[in-house]
């Protein structure tokens, strides 16, 4: 009885959590002619026609490039600012440290929804409205608290003794950080960067509010999906999901600790 229970549960749970993704992938590759043919459930052949059309005729590829640009700029800003902050929280004891940590956790839970509209009015003044930079600046604010919390935990796990040993051998504190702690923290930092990339890649609300012409992929989808034929809807889902799933799979070993730390 127990012997078949685990495999049975495994299959049921896997069907529930993977099912919609797999089905949408198949739907995105179903030939248009078979879409309203109810005689069979799955298509007789698969085609990349819809995905191609979405990307190269309907402006999807341009939006995809904007998405990548936004994500790269936002993680660059978030890490450039967040790594020193995370290092400070991990290595120094100072008054107000707890307050800073709690403030980061609190900012982490504030959605961009509450600032997007007010940001537009500021952006209009600084010519940032409808630019990739503008969206990236907002996304960086979303990713930054996450980076501070994560990097502080990563640096805490790198033994301070290594740095001290380096300093005994003549390195400065900064030198010890660059030559010792940073390389040891690198895998974790890389995984967090990929996670930050996905956070930006998936964000639709602020991106839609802050841009009109230079839309990111999710903003483009939000604006066009419901007016598009069904097969384009699923092509959109596939184009959004595949890179994110690949990235998540690459960093799978780090995921639980990333979530464990950043969600708490």
């Amino acid at each position, binding site marked *: 009885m127990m012997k078949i229970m685990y495999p049975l549960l495994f299959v049921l749970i*896997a069907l529930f959590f993977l099912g919609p993704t797999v089905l949408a992938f198949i739907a995105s590759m179903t030939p248009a002619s078979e879409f309203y043919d109810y005689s069979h459930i799955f298509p007789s052949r698969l085609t990349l026609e819809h995905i191609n059309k979405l990307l190269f005729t309907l402006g999807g590829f341009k939006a995809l490039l904007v998405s990548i640009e936004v994500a790269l700029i936002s993680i660059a800003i978030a890490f450039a600012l967040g790594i*020193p902050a995370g290092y400070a929280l991990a290595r120094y004891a*100072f008054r107000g440290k707890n307050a800073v940590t709690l403030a980061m956790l609190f900012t982490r839970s*504030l*959605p961009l*929804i509450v600032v997007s509209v*007010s940001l537009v009015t500021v952006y209009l003044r600084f010519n940032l409205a409808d630019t990739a930079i503008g969206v990236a600046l907002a996304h960086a604010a979303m990713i930054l608290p996450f980076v501070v919390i994560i990097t502080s935990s990563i640096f805490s796990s790198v033994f301070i003794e290594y740095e001290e040993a380096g300093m005994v051998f003549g390195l400065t504190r900064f030198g010890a950080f660059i030559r010792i702690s940073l390389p040891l923290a690198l895998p974790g930092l890389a995984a967090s960067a990929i996670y930050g990339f996905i956070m930006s890649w998936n964000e639709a*609300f602020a991106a839609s*509010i802050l841009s009109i012409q230079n839309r990111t992929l999710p903003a483009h989808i939000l604006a066009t999906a419901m007016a598009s034929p069904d097969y384009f809807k699923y092509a959109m889902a596939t184009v959004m999901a595949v890179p994110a799933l690949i990235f*998540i799979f690459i960093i799978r070993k780090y995921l639980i600790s990333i979530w464990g730390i950043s969600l708490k």
Partner: protein
Amino acid sequence: MPHMHIKKQFIPWLLLAPSLIYLLIFMGLPIIGTAKLAFESDEGWLGNFKILFSSKDFQNALWNTLLLAVIVIPIQLVLSIFLAILVNKKFKGHQTLLYIIASPLALSDITAALMSYSIFAPNGYLNRILLSINWIERPIYFFGYMFKSKEMLVIILTEVWRATPLVFVMILAGLQSINKEYIEAAEVFGFSSWQRLWKITLPLLKPSILSALLIRTLFAFQLFGVVWLLAGRDIKVLAGETYYWYVFMNNKNVASVYALIIALLTFVVGWFYIKTIRSEHLEEGAR
């Protein structure tokens, strides 16, 4: 050396300053900006609020946002506890199952909505399956103004699918940090597995459950993509109305009132969240 002491206190703040200033500029000040926009109107400082409260839309949006949270979160919690205990049994393939359960976490809310649509659309998989086994004669419609309760059902299912992994990961992390000796001791004392769950595991999981609940509640106020793509304004939610008033009505002031309300709700729940986290920190420190 007092000079050294001052310098030591100074360095961490120097390292923190860029992040703090950035967050002040891109989060702190814009929230004040949101409040300013919300109170800015030709008809007195409460003009936008009057527009808001004069229609049923706001009540609806608040009600739906809270209703969806109240329905979805308990389902997610029970499901997550079950899944976490199962994965924690470390049977063959438990690691693979962990990744499978976590996979929806990679998906954007709008991606999840479109995937869900592939199942529940008139020509979606559910209708195809039901038609092919002759269960129904013509497709069931889940979407449209006429079918609000079915839209609600689809949104609930989609949210359970999409966001249960988040709760699951938090519960699993809590479960893995429980000292095995407690469970073993309970076994020695002859507790049944049901008693072990209620008397040992769940009480020890309480802090994880509490923070998972609070985080999920925070995220519930942000619910947007799934509802907007699947139901549009048939089912109004707070974030959806923010989007609608800004993008479709071109009214940044009323949009800001909605955003401000989301911010206030976030502050209230966030305050409880920070309080629980702080008490956990203190416990860790005492250990």
